[in-house]
């Protein structure tokens, strides 16, 4: 599976735990992030940029605390991605 699909999936899931359906609704607003009714997630475009945009979008809505939660959400995946491929906003 594309690592950015995994990252974005983990981020949306974590945000859902905190803000509920708004997390999914807001993610669907990002051009290039497609989530089907079944929950299947696909990306169109640069995964790194899309991840950055999604986290920035959450940060604009929910504040800096949401960035921290995104970082928490991707911790189990951090070994799967090289530091260079990680979006700037998610770097620790």
């Amino acid at each position, binding site marked *: 599976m594309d690592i950015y699909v995994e990252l974005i*999936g983990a981020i949306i899931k974590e945000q859902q735990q905190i*803000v509920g359906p708004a997390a*999914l609704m807001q993610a669907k607003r990002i051009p290039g992030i497609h*989530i089907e009714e*079944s*929950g299947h997630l696909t990306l169109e475009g640069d995964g790194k940029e899309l991840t950055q945009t999604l986290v920035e979008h959450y940060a604009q809505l929910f504040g800096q605390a949401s960035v921290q939660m995104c970082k928490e959400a991707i911790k189990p995946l951090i070994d799967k991605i090289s530091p260079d491929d990680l979006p700037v906003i998610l770097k620790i």
Partner: protein
Amino acid sequence: MDAQNLLTIYADLQKILLNTRDTSKLLPNLINHAFFKLSQIDMHPLYMGGLFINENKQIMDSYIKDAYSSINVAENTRDPDSTYYKVNVMLNNTNSAQKLNSGKLVLVDDIQAILPKNLTDGDKIKCVILSPIIIENSLKGLLIIGIDKSTLLPEEEAFIQIMTNLAGSAYKLQDNQNTLTNITQELYKTNAQLRQLDKMKDQLIAVTSHELRTPATIVQNYLWMMLYKSDERTILGEKDKERLEHSYMSIQNLIHLISDILDVSKIESNRLELNFSQVDYEGTINDIIRAQMPKITAKNLTIVLNKAPDVPDKIYTDIMRLHEIFSNLISNAVKFTEKGGVVINVKRKDNNLIFEIKDTGRGISPEFLPNLFKKFYREDISYTASNPETGGTGLGLYIVKSIIELMHGSITVQSELGRGTTFIITLPAAPVNSPLLDTSALKSLTSTGVIHREDYLKKMSERPSTTEVVITDKKKTILLVEDDPDMQHLYSEFLTDDFNIVLAENGLTAFEKMEKEQFDVILLDIMMPKMDGIKFLEKRKGNKHLLNVPVIILTNLGSEDVLKQCMELGATATIMKSDVTPDQIPPIINRTLAK
């Protein structure tokens, strides 16, 4: 000034507001564009600013624009020459404030009373227009426009007032949005803290239940071995057998209680997840009936499963949770029935399957019925608590109802004291689009290992059979990776008839042993010191040679997330130690080996 032109400008400015996505930029965008739009008509503004004040006449936000610089936010300054400072002074002057409060434009000839002395092109400004922004009948701000003429035409004055109202609307929208954003962000922070606490609670419950389950499982298994695996050396007297049976039943109740507490914790934190697949529900019900047969026979009861001819063979659901539902209801029916028996009817209605579990037991009193599915409610505490046969936690039916609702089904009950009880369950026979998109829709984002879980459940529910034994010329060797000495002893004892057992007390030791010796299968605990089960699986992934040796997770850790992670890391099956009796493990190992 052409009225048509003014309308066009006004419409353009409205469009700018409507098209500004970031509400924090509404006012700067409006002032910036208004500056240029007014330049297109005869007003030629040389300076434009928007200042907004609170109830105490203190400036809260201010935006300044002139012909030579882009729009900027004016800083809170004590510089007596700044517009910010001068307007502040003016607003604290009762006469000026009164005029502005009336909502009318004020034209100021003394330019330097409002604008800075060193303003570029300041000498060209002949007049400063102060247009008050009135919101909810009070002065909330000023639009300040420096122009190169001393008077305004009536239509220009009217237009500035319209524009001021537009700025007022933008300010109100921006202010509301800011308030909403602040509240949202504060709520988010609180929710995030709650989420962290929830995670800690889950972890605590998972670890505690693991610590409780481990000794309970050891006791349960030794009791099982004494009761059902007696050989010549252990001949039990009737009295001892009875005592052991009571002990075995009590320890099983304790293990059920731990599982129930874990389930309730997951239900209450919306973390109970379902893994859907095509399920042979008839097989599941028959397995449960088989497990209940000793009690049914002992009480001389009958049990019948009737399936209508038009009922499909499979249902799209979570096999593990379906097992939990029927196990709970059927065992309750058997538990509370002394004469007669239990009938399970399966019917079809539209796209739903209807399951009726009907018993001829003692029934439920009408007073208690409304509380039946509530947590910790039991009809007769003294009766249930004093009798290990009928005792319970009062959580079972609450869990059953919660799971059924999560499956988009329903459960109802009909009962008559002394005549019996009927539970009616309605479950969708086919997949349902979940309205609870927030908790379930993203499940397909990760591979959940459903097949493994189903496989595991099937194995778990099957009794050992001689036909399942793998025909082999020599005993297979198991590497048992387990840190608890009592568990090591227990599993070594009951597996040693069928397998050679090599012990390793953690993942690190397991790797050392694997370098020296070949193993046929690995039984792996998760929570261990130095290198736990997850780290072991991660390290194993990097070694192609070791990937050929299947790994069966043998754990008491009640975290489904961790079990899923194990499956994703390549484990073949997971076995919950407390859910299986010793005789059920060799067939699972043999099946894994046969694959």
